[in-house]
């Protein structure tokens, strides 16, 4: 199928300085956990997108000097020739597929804690970072300014030598150039502070110097948060935003614009829970009106209609994307070929971002199980090895892992029978998507449903049987499959079993009319009373989502939480607005409290730290701390148990108990994947199904194959020609 001619505009080339982008699709800088230390990961992940049709592809933020060291988080670095060597691999691979490679030169100021380098960050004035609250910067004198600008120039030269086509001066997310520009940080009274011209001076001079150094060979880009979203305390789009853009326009070849800061950068990388596609446009649209250079902007653009609107309405010239490019590295190619159904649409869950926020683990993606696995496991997002046998596979459970496993097995040419009791593919996504703000998470189901339906049409031996009765071990054995995959998922505990006590809570029983699990709340079959108490021992979204749903429906909600409420939502950038939401809905959050027992109409809460700070050996049978005397009763009409989950693994266990009957039934193997193996993130459930499907011919496919590791090798110096030996300077 050819693409719709109205999308032709997206495939027009755009000239940026000395370089030309082949179309309007552009992967903005985003973190993946590769940096300069995992060059294979970096090169493979970025070049897969070049192959998928993106015109420009960037590194993550790339430190220009050890003074800007974000450890524990992972940036790229261009500190020395060792980094040049490693990043050159990415440039070469990206070029091989006809795209431009860009690098985002970064100096963090007080936002970089310098935990590895132990250097002192410098900034326009002295302050403690609102992001890294223990890190203060040194206020720069004029000499410092010259020196730091010199760091940018040296890094830009190294970037050019590595083969980069686009060199950024990074001033979004409140990093150094913006710290000079914004009165929120800049309290100087000299020529670098005060008026807009003075506050802009550092950024303009830096752009000018970088341009003089590499501008003939490289396009100069700057990333600019056009509105800090603080009102008059920071940058406002229509005030300093457009004024700065006018001043800097002659010095840049392409503008990369967004909004917000670093402490709340979920206002930029907006989760779908709170923000729709294109949510930044009301702020960013002003820039294109005052500049002559091409403008690119982000906003989780996945829909070509929306992209065309962005271009034709004059909001931006280039469609910037980070998350959509992770969920589908072949997004441009699929639009180009009119394969709209095949687009793996970003669900906006921000689990990719969570890994950077946690500080170090490789990026993962809920939609795209191959993200981050390109180099180390050799997984291409769109290409699959043909099947290695004629074996037929029965997959029991069409949720995230079973659906993904079936999809990949079908792509590989296997005959797959996918079987589920539910009437729809998607497993628990079908329920989650009904929680407030999570509708777009349903794209995870939609992608698999569409692909599986298509693949089953292509290979008529495949079959999708939905709405079936639960399968017994005897049914599964008699089914006639060579291999059986159990993907029966998990559910929330009905007895209060939790991560704090590892035991049920006395009196917890969701078979009662006045107690519910989250699934029961979502299904809506039990009546929920006015006064609701949520007992929480889960650190992700379920408790706040249920609280939001019920409070918005008029219930009085008390949330008793024995763990840091919504802690993982810090990492997905959903935390600040989730807290604002609970606040505006008057949800009463009792932190550090958990539940010791439940009686009809009341639950007993206690302070988890109520057992005394002194620890004393008192002999066997006697606890080392005092008795907790903080217990008190809270009344409820309905109690919701968000305490923990358990796997539905009984079918798997029964099949293993009957392993003696496998051979006569022609069953070669039975595998367990996803939540049925252990409850986990949707991304990890998806991954586990994908992995099994890729490795099903291996000797023991239940266990993952080893992956290629990229680690420093003893005796080999990072910078060629330097020593790797232990040498004391004595």
């Amino acid at each position, binding site marked *: *199928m050819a693409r719709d001619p109205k999308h032709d505009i997206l495939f027009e080339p755009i000239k940026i300085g000395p370089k030309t982008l082949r179309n309007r699709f552009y992967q903005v800088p985003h973190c993946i956990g590769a940096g300069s230390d995992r060059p294979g990961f970096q090169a493979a992940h970025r070049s897969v997108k070049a192959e998928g049709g993106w015109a420009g592809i960037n590194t993550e933020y790339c430190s220009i000097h050890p003074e800007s060291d974000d450890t524990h988080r992972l940036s790229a670095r261009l500190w020395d020739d060792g980094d040049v060597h490693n990043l050159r691999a990415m440039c070469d691979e990206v070029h091989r597929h006809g795209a431009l490679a860009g690098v985002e030169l970064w100096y963090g100021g007080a936002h970089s804690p310098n935990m590895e380098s132990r250097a002192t960050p410098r900034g326009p004035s002295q302050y403690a970072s609102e992001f890294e609250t223990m890190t203060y910067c040194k206020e720069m004198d004029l000499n410092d300014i010259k020196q730091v600008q010199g760091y940018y120039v040296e890094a830009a030269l190294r970037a050019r030598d590595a083969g980069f086509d686009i060199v950024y001066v990074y001033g979004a997310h409140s990093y150094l150039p913006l710290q000079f520009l914004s009165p929120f940080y800049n309290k100087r009274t000299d020529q670098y502070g005060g008026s807009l011209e003075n506050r802009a001076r550092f950024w303009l001079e830096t752009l000018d110097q970088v341009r003089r150094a590499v501008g003939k060979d490289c396009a100069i880009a700057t990333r600019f948060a056009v509105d800090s979203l603080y009102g008059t305390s920071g940058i406002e789009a229509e005030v300093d935003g457009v004024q700065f853009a006018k001043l800097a326009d002659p010095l840049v070849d392409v503008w990369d614009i967004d909004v917000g800061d670093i402490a709340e950068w979920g206002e930029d990388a907006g989760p779908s829970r709170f923000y729709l596609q294109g949510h930044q446009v009301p702020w960013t649209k002003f820039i294109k009106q005052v500049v002559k250079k091409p403008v690119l902007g982000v906003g989780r653009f996945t829909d070509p209609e929306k992209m065309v609107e962005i271009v034709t309405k004059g909001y931006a010239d280039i469609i910037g994307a980070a998350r959509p490019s992770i969920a589908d590295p072949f997004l441009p190619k699929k639009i180009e070929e009119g394969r709209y159904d095949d687009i793996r649409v970003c669900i906006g869950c921000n689990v990719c971002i969570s890994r950077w926020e946690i500080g170090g683990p490789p990026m993962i993606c809920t939609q795209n199980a191959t993200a981050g696995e390109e180099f180390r496991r050799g997984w291409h997002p769109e290409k699959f090895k043909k099947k290695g046998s004629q074996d*037929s596979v*029965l997959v029991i459970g069409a949720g995230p892992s079973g659906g993904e496993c079936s999809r990949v097995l079908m792509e590989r040419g296997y*005959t797959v*029978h996918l079987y589920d009791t539910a009437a729809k593919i998607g497993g628990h996504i079908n329920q989650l998507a009904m929680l407030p703000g999570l509708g777009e998470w349903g794209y995870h189901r939609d992608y698999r449903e569409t692909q599986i339906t298509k693949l089953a*049409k292509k290979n*008529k*031996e495949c*079959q999708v*049987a939905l*709405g*079936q009765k639960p399968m017994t071990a005897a049914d599964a054995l*008699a*089914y*006639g*499959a060579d291999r059986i995959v159990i993907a029966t998922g998990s559910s929330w505990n009905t007895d209060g079993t939790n991560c704090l006590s590892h035991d049920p809570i006395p009196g917890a029983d969701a078979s009662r009319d006045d107690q519910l699990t989250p699934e029961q709340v979502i299904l809506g079959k039990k009546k929920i009373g006015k006064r609701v108490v949520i007992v929480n021992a889960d650190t992700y979204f379920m408790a706040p989502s249920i609280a939001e749903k019920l409070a918005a429906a008029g219930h009085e909600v008390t949330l008793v939480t024995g763990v840091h409420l919504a802690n993982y939502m810090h990492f997905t950038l959903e935390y600040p607005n989730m807290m604002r939401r609970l606040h505006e809905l008057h949800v009463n959050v009792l932190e550090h409290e958990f539940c010791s027992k439940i009686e009809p109409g009341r639950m007993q809460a206690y302070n988890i730290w109520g057992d005394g700070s002194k620890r004393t050996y008192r002999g066997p049978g006697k606890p080392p701390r005092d008795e907790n005397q903080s217990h008190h009763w809270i009344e409820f009409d309905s109690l919701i148990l968000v305490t923990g989950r358990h796997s539905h693994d009984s079918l798997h266990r029964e099949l293993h108990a009957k392993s003696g009957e496998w051979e006569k039934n022609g069953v070669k193997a039975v595998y367990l994947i996803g939540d049925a193996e252990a409850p986990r993130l949707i991304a990890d459930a998806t991954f586990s199904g994908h992995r099994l499907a890729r490795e099903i011919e291996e000797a023991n496919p239940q266990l993952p194959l080893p992956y290629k590791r990229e680690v420093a090798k003893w005796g080999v110096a990072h910078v060629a020609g330097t020593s790797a030996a232990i040498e004391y300077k004595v």
Partner: protein
Amino acid sequence: MATKILVAVKQVIALDEDFEIRADGKDVDADFFLRDLNEWDDFSLEEAVKIKEAGGEVEVVVVTVGPEEADESLRKCLAKGADRAVRIWDESMEGSDSQAIARVLAAAIKHEKPDLVFAGVQSSDHSFASTGIAVAGLLGWPHAAVVNQFDFSLGATQATIRRELEGGVLQMMNIDLPAVLSIQLGINTPRYASLRTIKQAAAKPIETLGLGDLSLNAAEVGEVGSASRVRRMYIPEKGRAQMIEGSLAEQAAKLAAIIKEFKGATV
């Protein structure tokens, strides 16, 4: 003696979004055909298999008129519980309309001598909804169309059926057997085949019959034996969008006129 239920099935043509009309303008280009068992036949087969599974000696025979490609659909029926599959074909049958097909099926029924015949209400590709009833007419058997409930005891001379009529009205009736019934969607929940039954079905024979086996001659089938001819097959032009211009009052008046015209055309 076993009760024999004959289920007449059809391999239909499904189409994807993209397809082209054949150069002679009388059909879709065969390159774009996706073949599958007619959706209604899943239900009529299931109804027959349910009777078999309820106990007693029952044989379910599926019969289709079609070329070799149709074996795939017959195997699907075998995997879902049919005991035997019969495919009738002769090149002279190409271009048969529903009457000609009914003539072939009626001959097959005389040959098989079933106690009961099920057909789907209609086929999803040509939608004539006439083959089953035409078969009954040719045989002179009692018949009932659009059956959505069927109660029958083995050996009984009558069955009780429920039919769907216009406007949501249902009709209960008794029917003498043998009879031809056209079965409606939703009468049951069709089963899926398991990998085991699919493998077993792959090993079962498909009986093939030709003109001579059924004492038919070439003039009774195909285009010459049909009562109707396809003149043209085409994709109608899509509706057009129209920008309504003028003052608010003028726009409202034009919109009202369009709505009136539309209502007049459809009511």
